[in-house]
C-alpha cells in the first residue's frame, strides 16, 4: 500500500511543481507550491521520517510560503500583473532552463541506475529523538553555523528596520 501511496504523492508533487512554475497568477502558483510541499511531506512520511514530514509542513508550507503569499498580498497584484506576466513568460524563455533541467535529469538517471553500491531506502523509522540526537551529536557544527547565520540575518533586519523607524520619527 505504501508503494502506491508513494507513486500517487510523487505524481502530485511533480504535476503541482510543474503548475507552480507555469502559472501566471502569483497566488495560484504559490498554492501549487504548497501542494508540492505537502506531497513531499507525504513522501517523507512514507519513507519512515514522520518528524521530517511534520517539519516540512510546519516550516516550509506553514511559515515560508505564508510569507511569500503575504508579500503577494502587500503588492496587491491584480489582473494587470497577470497580463504583464503573460507578456514576459514567452515560450522561448523555457528553452534554456528545459535543456539544463533535462541534462540534470539524465545525469541523475545515470547516477541512480549505474552506481555499484545501490542506495536502498530501508524505511526505518526516524523519530524526533533520533533527529535531535544526531543534530546535537555529529551535526552540531552545522547547527551552530546555521545559528550564526540566523543571528546575522536578525541583526541585519533589526538594523534596516531601525533606520526606517528613525527616518519616520524625524519627519
Amino acid at each position: 500500500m505504501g508503494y502506491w501511496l508513494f507513486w500517487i504523492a510523487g505524481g502530485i508533487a511533480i504535476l503541482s511543481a510543474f503548475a507552480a512554475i507555469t502559472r501566471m497568477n502569483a497566488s495560484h502558483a504559490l498554492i501549487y507550491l504548497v501542494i508540492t510541499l505537502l506531497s513531499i511531506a507525504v513522501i517523507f512520511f512514507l519513507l519512515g521520517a514522520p518528524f521530517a514530514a511534520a517539519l516540512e509542513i510546519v516550516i516550509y508550507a506553514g511559515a515560508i510560503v505564508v510569507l511569500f503569499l503575504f508579500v503577494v498580498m502587500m503588492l496587491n497584484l491584480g489582473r494587470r500583473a497577470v497580463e504583464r506576466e503573460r507578456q514576459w513568460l514567452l515560450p522561448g524563455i523555457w528553452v534554456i532552463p528545459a535543456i539544463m533541467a533535462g541534462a540534470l535529469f539524465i545525469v541523475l538517471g545515470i547516477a541512480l541506475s549505474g552506481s555499484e553500491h545501490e542506495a536502498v531506502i530501508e524505511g526505518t523509522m526516524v523519530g524526533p529523538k533520533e533527529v535531535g540526537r544526531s543534530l546535537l551529536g555529529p551535526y552540531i557544527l552545522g547547527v551552530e553555523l546555521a545559528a550564526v547565520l540566523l543571528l546575522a540575518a536578525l541583526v541585519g533586519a533589526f538594523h534596516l528596520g531601525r533606520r526606517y523607524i528613525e527616518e519616520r520619527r524625524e519627519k
Partner: protein
Amino acid sequence: MFGVDWSYLLILPIVLGALVAALVLVWWERRVLGWFQDRLGPNRVGWFGVLQALADVIKLVTKDDWVPPFGDRILFILAPVIVAGAMLMSFVVVPLDAHLIIADTNIALLWFLAMSSLAVYGVLLAGLASNNKYALLGGLRSAAQMVTYEVFMGLSLLGVVMLSGSFSLKDVVEAQEEMWFCIPQFVGLVIFVIAGLAETHRLPFDLPEAEHELTAGFHTEYSGMKFGLIMAGEYLALILVSCLIVVLFFGGWLGPGFLPGFVWFGIKVVLVINFFILLRAAIPRPRYDQLMSLGWKILLPLSLLNILVSGAVVLWMAS
C-alpha cells in the same frame, strides 16, 4: 502503520461530534455572553433556545451563496474549506480517553502545529480572493498575527515535551499521573492560552475581523454556507485549543475513578471553553501594534526563558 484497525471507526463519530459541538457552542456562547452582560441572549427556539443553532444552520444553508464576480473564484471557494478542514484534521491526534484516539503517533504535537499553520492559508486566501480592501487588510493582519503567535505556541509546548519526553499526546497525558503539568509548566500554560486565543482569533485578539474597523475583515464578502464553514472553523479551533489545553496541562482523561475517562475529559474541556468565553466578555481588544509587541517583546523571551529553566530543572532532577 497501514494496518486496518478499529480506530478508523472513530473518524466519523469524532468529525460529527466536533461539528455538532461547534454548532451547539455558537448558541452556548451567545447564551453565556448574555448572562455575563446581564441580558437574556437567544432563549426562544426550543428548550432554553438550544434549537437556535439549528435555526441558524437552516438560515445559512438557504441563503444566497454569492461569489464576488470581481474576485478570484477558485481561491474564494477553496479558502473556507481550508479553514474548516485543517481544524478537523487536527482532531485526529486528540486523545479522548486512553484508547479513544484515532492516531497515536510520535509526532502528534507537531501534527497539531502543522495543521494550525495550514489554517493560516484559509484566512489569507479568503482575504486575497475577495478583492476587497477590508478583506485584504484583515487577511494581512491575521497572517502576521498567526505566524507570530505560532512561533511561541510551539515554544511554549517544549516544556511539556521535556517533562513527558515525547511528542505523543497519549504519553503526555500518562506522564501527568502524579502531577498535572499546569503546576510545573504554569508559564507555558499562560503563553499557550494567549497564543491559542491569537491563533483562533477570538475576541480579545480578533483584530483580523474587528468589526468596527474592517467591517468583518477577511470574511467580509462571504455569505451563506461558505460563511458558515468559516464560522464552523473558528468554533472548531476553539474546541481544539481547549482540548489541547486539557490534554497538555490538565491531565486529559485522568481523574477520580468513579467516572469514565472521556467524561472527565469532556468536563474539563467544557470548563476551559467557558473560560475562553469569559475572557471574551471580560477583556477589551488591544490595538494591533500592542498585540504584536506583546508577542515579540514579552511572550517570545518569556517562552525561551521557560524552555531554559525547564530544561535545567529536568537535567538537575535526572542527575
